[in-house]
């Protein structure tokens, strides 16, 4: 073993920083323990969960401190649907920070989601019928031949 990175270490599931409550209000500490228990549940039973940060009595700076504690992960995604939404992976596996904004950029709320991928980011297989219809229309409008007769949205629902 010649390199430090080859030493087989296992990062503690809840890093020590999470237990350092210095500078975090009691509400912030409560949120962190809630995340901890949601993660344990998700790990054990695959049951995802979320925390709505909108109605919690947080002190100014609490959200920033939570951001600091949870850190930044590899993925940051934007969704443009009735205004912008963002889903940012935190440095804690399976913990995401999701924010929904309205059409004028106003924040509608923030959520912590414990899941592999927030459902907001998933494409919807059940909507493929609408996608096929749009694809056929686009092909025709770009001068292509109309495609073989595929079931319509109505037909597929019947």
């Amino acid at each position: 073993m010649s390199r430090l990175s080859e030493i087989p270490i296992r990062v503690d599931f809840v890093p020590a920083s999470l237990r350092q409550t210095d500078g975090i209000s009691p509400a912030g500490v409560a949120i962190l323990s809630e995340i901890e228990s949601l993660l344990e549940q998700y790990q054990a039973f695959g049951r995802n969960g979320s925390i709505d940060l909108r109605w919690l009595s947080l002190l100014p700076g609490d959200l920033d401190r939570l951001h600091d504690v949870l850190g930044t992960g590899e993925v940051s995604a934007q969704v443009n649907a009735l205004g912008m939404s963002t889903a940012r992976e935190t440095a804690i596996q399976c913990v995401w920070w999701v924010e929904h904004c309205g059409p004028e950029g106003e924040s509608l709320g923030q959520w912590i989601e414990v899941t592999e991928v927030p459902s907001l980011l998933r494409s919807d297989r059940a909507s493929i019928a609408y996608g096929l219809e749009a694809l056929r229309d686009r092909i025709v409008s770009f001068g292509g031949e109309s495609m073989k007769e595929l079931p319509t949205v109505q037909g597929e629902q019947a």
Partner: protein
Amino acid sequence: MKTQETIFDVLQSRGVSRRAFMKFCTVTASTLALGSHEASVFAQALASAPRPSVIWLSFQQCTGCSESILRSFDPTLENLLLNYLSLDYHESLQAAAGFQAEAARKKAMADNIGRYVLIVDGSIPTGDKEYWSAAAGESNLEVLRDAVRNAGVVIALGACATFGGIPAAKPNPSQATGVDDLMTRGLIDTKPLVNVSGCPPIPEVITGTIAYYLANGQLPELDALKRPKVFYGKTVHDNCARLPHFNAGRFAQSFDDAGARQGHCLYMLGCKGPQTFNACTTMKWNQGTSYPMNSGHGCLGCSEPGFWDNSLGFYSN
């Protein structure tokens, strides 16, 4: 067999994506203070609920309630349900007019007996003033009586439809009153009724109430005045940013004095916050921007019965 068209089918066919719908459900569930599990049950129930027929009747009113929720040209989360599900009848918004419009209302009612959502804004003249407000030869009271008879639920929207509002202020020349009072007096049938009071009500409160009903097939828990407790369970004073000054006895004495500028309480300037149950301080107005006390003016108490008459005036307490 073609299954019944659901809310999500209608939204999707009008170009609303699943993600936009999910976002609507997440924010609305948050507005209704649902927990994370309840929120996902709510989203599934709303998506698969049958498309409702919504009939909106407007009587003695200023159109502020419709403006409050339908004002935007852009689709917003608040107007998503009503704009995209399409209202079967709304006198101010529909393209149809005259006999054609009346026929559309009667058809929507006949096709959805016992199931349609009846939204009412505006107060209704009664007694020998019943015909002070009428359309197509029918008084407001006759139209309402006919529509309530087979409604699944009635949503009284705004100060006028709930408690009479400005038209019912002294001397109440048209003997105007609200829907609940008409039910109590037996002038119209008694049906499940929810009062969404305010002048106008907060858009998210209107949407949240309708979405809750559509997802659950029943009304949310109501207070003694038939208002949804989740929105009207606390006074605006309970969450006012000026509350610490109220508790410390620091009151502004005029609108532009040093105290007012430092955020002191506006009670001495007539604020009705301590007796007004509404969600202005939590939901806020204009897409979460502010609320009256935050912008320097006291609460007028617009969501309470007797709005206009039941106080010493807007600027005294």
